[in-house]
């Protein structure tokens, strides 16, 4: 048996393990509690569905609007200090949705200094509320769009960048206006990339719990928690989660369908792309346009958080370095492991001509859309079962009782992260592999038949940019992850997200500011690295 077959076997084993928590959730559909379902259908289910659909579609629309506009401008124009905008536009990646939601609530709160200032300026009595309340569905849509648009920006930027000047020239000669060119050519050609970004945003929005719970929006994932915690009905909660899975599956199928004729969008054009120089009024306009999303998605909330953390908060800074250490350790370890797994899966999918493995990879990607807590519960039941079986085995054969081995360990936490974020890493590694032509493989194998050699000497060096961006994205995601960490972590193990959440959920927004700004701060480093990486790749 050669090395490649071994790696196939490993892939199958790991995939089965990673899929178990998903199945343990999906299997709940075989024990339906009809009474509770009837109740849900009679009362709240329609709300859950409409709210979720509106949230998902709204956030995707908002993110597409922001991401595509900025992506187009950045890909097509050259202007003063563009490099700064290039960094700034991606900063909201470091801002968790629930934190931006808390921050804006506090900022626009009835008693907030900003609110008082506005009242003072217009000399209104202190009982008047002038700022709009953002805690409703449309507010949630805005919050989500503000922090999730970079996903669309990244993908659409690359798509626009690959459209050569000649396309614009065709339109110019045909007497079309720039706007007409954008809507008839540039946007339709970038459609697959834009929709992929939109699908990512929809999945994030569907899985979100922190923001919608705080804003009192009853979405599907809020409903899952409500059914579980309120009614104490874990089975129905799991069934709701399965329904959410189905919905996400639908989104993924639609996204796939939209790329059905993917070849329609591949342009084999020599990529001669020059950017148009903009100065004067146009420069000011472009700067304002591109600065607005990061201004609202990053700078304003960051400044508010900093202000709270420095001037008002009395949260103890004791043990803060410990908190920071745990967070970094966990995020880095998770990034490393998840990307290694993703590499293995996409490598196997590439090496086997049959479609099984690429379908498997799609299935593994489903975890991304499930609320973290649902995954946590799936993981808990698997790990508990495994620990019990193992103990029974050792007790009966060796009279040894090792106790819990994986439950309540870092391992289980990493397992849950893998289920949740494998999709993020897979997308990068699969894209990376797709860029390496199969002829390269053939040439390499012809010179040296060792597949390990091929992987280590040819693929890994070529994949370096993909691997790096996968690691950075996973790092930032784990950094922000909350519900699974909260439930699965070992004794005495805290992270920044856990600390921020606990304080915020007790309505102590101001005290939550320090850990929150720390999350943002730690997230900045990988985001900047990511930007640097992207820039290098594009030149």
């Amino acid at each position, binding site marked *: 048996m050669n090395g490649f077959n071994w790696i196939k076997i490993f892939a199958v084993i790991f995939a089965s393990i990673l899929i178990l928590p998903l199945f343990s959730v999906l299997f709940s559909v075989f024990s339906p509690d009809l009474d509770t379902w009837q109740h849900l259908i009679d*009362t709240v289910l329609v709300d859950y569905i409409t709210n979720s659909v509106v949230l998902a579609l709204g956030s995707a629309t908002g993110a597409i609007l922001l991401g595509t506009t900025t992506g187009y401008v950045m890909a097509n124009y050259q202007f003063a200090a563009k490099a700064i905008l290039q960094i700034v536009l991606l900063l909201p990646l470091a801002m968790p949705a629930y934190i931006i939601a808390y921050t804006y609530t506090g900022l626009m709160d009835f008693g907030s200094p900003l609110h008082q200032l506005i009242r003072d300026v217009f000399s209104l009595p202190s009982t008047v509320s002038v700022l709009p309340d953002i805690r409703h569905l449309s507010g949630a849509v805005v919050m989500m769009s503000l922090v999730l648009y970079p996903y669309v920006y990244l993908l659409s930027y690359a798509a626009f960048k690959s459209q050569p000047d000649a396309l614009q020239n065709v339109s110019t000669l045909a007497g079309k206006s720039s706007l007409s060119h954008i809507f008839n050519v540039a946007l339709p050609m970038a459609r697959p990339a834009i929709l992929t970004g939109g699908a990512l945003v929809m999945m994030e929005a569907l899985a979100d719990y922190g923001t919608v719970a705080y804003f009192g929006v009853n979405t599907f994932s809020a409903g899952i928690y409500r059914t579980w915690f309120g009614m104490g009905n874990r089975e129905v909660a799991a069934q709701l989660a399965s329904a959410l899975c189905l919905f996400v599956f639908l989104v993924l199928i639609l996204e796939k369908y939209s790329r059905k004729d993917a070849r329609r969008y591949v342009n084999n054009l020599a990529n001669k792309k020059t950017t148009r120089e903009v100065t004067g009024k146009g420069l000011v306009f472009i700067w304002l346009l591109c600065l607005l999303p990061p201004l609202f998605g990053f700078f304003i909330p960051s400044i508010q958080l900093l202000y709270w953390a420095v001037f008002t*908060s009395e949260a103890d800074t004791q043990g803060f370095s410990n908190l920071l250490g745990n967070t970094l350790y966990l995020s880095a370890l998770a990034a490393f492991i998840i990307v290694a797994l993703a590499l293995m899966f996409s490598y196997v999918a590439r090496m086997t001509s049959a479609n099984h493995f690429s379908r498997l990879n799609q299935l593994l990607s489903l975890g991304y859309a499930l609320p973290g807590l649902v995954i946590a519960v799936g993981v808990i039941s698997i790990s508990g079962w495994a620990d019990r079986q193992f103990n029974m085995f050792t007790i009966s054969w060796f009279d040894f*009782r090792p106790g819990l081995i994986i439950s309540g360990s870092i391992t289980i936490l990493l397992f849950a992260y893998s289920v949740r974020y494998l999709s993020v890493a897979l997308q990068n590694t699969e894209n990376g592999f797709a860029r390496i032509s199969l002829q390269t493989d053939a040439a390499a194998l012809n010179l040296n038949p060792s597949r390990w050699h091929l992987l280590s000497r040819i693929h890994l060096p070529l994949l370096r940019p993909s691997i790096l961006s996968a690691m950075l994205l996973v790092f930032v995601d784990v950094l922000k992850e909350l519900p699974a960490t909260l439930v699965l972590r*070992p004794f005495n193990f805290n992270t920044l997200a856990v600390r921020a959440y606990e304080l915020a959920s007790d309505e102590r927004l101001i005290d939550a500011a320090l850990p929150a700004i720390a999350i943002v701060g730690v997230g900045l480093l990988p985001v900047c690295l990511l930007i640097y990486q992207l820039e290098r790749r594009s030149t």
Partner: protein
Amino acid sequence: MASVFTILFAGLSAAQSFAAEVNVYSGRQEALIKPLLDKFTAQTGVKVNLVTGKADALISRAASEGEFSQVDLLVMADAGRLVRAKNMRLTQAIGLDLPALSSSFIDEEKHWVALTTRARTVMYKKGSDVVLPESMLALADKKYAGQICVRSSSNIYNQSMTAAMMLDKGDEVTSKWAKGIAENMARKPKGGDRDQIKAMIAGECQFAIANTYYLGGMLTSSDESQREIAEQVAIAWTPKSEGGTHINISGVSIAKHAPNKAAAEQLLTFMLAEEQQAWYAEVNQEYPVIDGVNWSKTLERLGRFDAQSVNFNDMGRLNGDALKLMDKAGWQ
């Protein structure tokens, strides 16, 4: 052979139990329990290992870990979860002589004991010329249409309050009440209890339904604007004649498979001691369960009140039904 395994898995596995340790799963957040645990360690030398989190998720974790679970003590922030843990057979009878508590604060089978109580009341703006409702029930009256701020029915405090009312007044009255509240709301439920209080002071509504410890927290907040708002709030307690003000408890159970039962009992006793009881009142503005323990200045300022008498086991059991009832009433 055994030692080989021990070495093999020592690195991977969760913290192993040693004699002088106790492991706690807490549905109460860290800031509201860690200082007590640290004090316990300082006094007794027993190390306390803590995981905080969503109560139900921790219950699920304990359940799936089963007989090998390391958890000794379960701390829950409300009666519903204490009952849920008991019903899932995750707890055992407390074999201690407990201090003198009102009987409702201890499970009939001693599977849990209360640590603190919280009161949920109607609040209004000082000096406003509103017609005060004589009870929580009366707030459902049509005359309060468009005057009430209250958070979502997803919230456990509203579920407990409704469950308690179902026990006291029956399903029909409670159902009508929930419908009345839903119709009288000044706005769609959103935000937490503090948000309801703020909205009330901002004039969005005349009455806010909130737990008193949130008001206490605002009164002692480091943020001046919060203190300013809280100073303007008055409380309308439900008198004894109308059934008394709704209360809920936080409480503690000893895990069924507790590996460090003795230490767990030691910690439980410590938590119920007078000094610790007073700490809760001081730090989180919750009411002690032990009679005669001093209330904090803030709590005294809010005033003494008559609490409803309720069987917390029954209330906890009705939690899901209460939510369904609110669903039907259109309380979002």
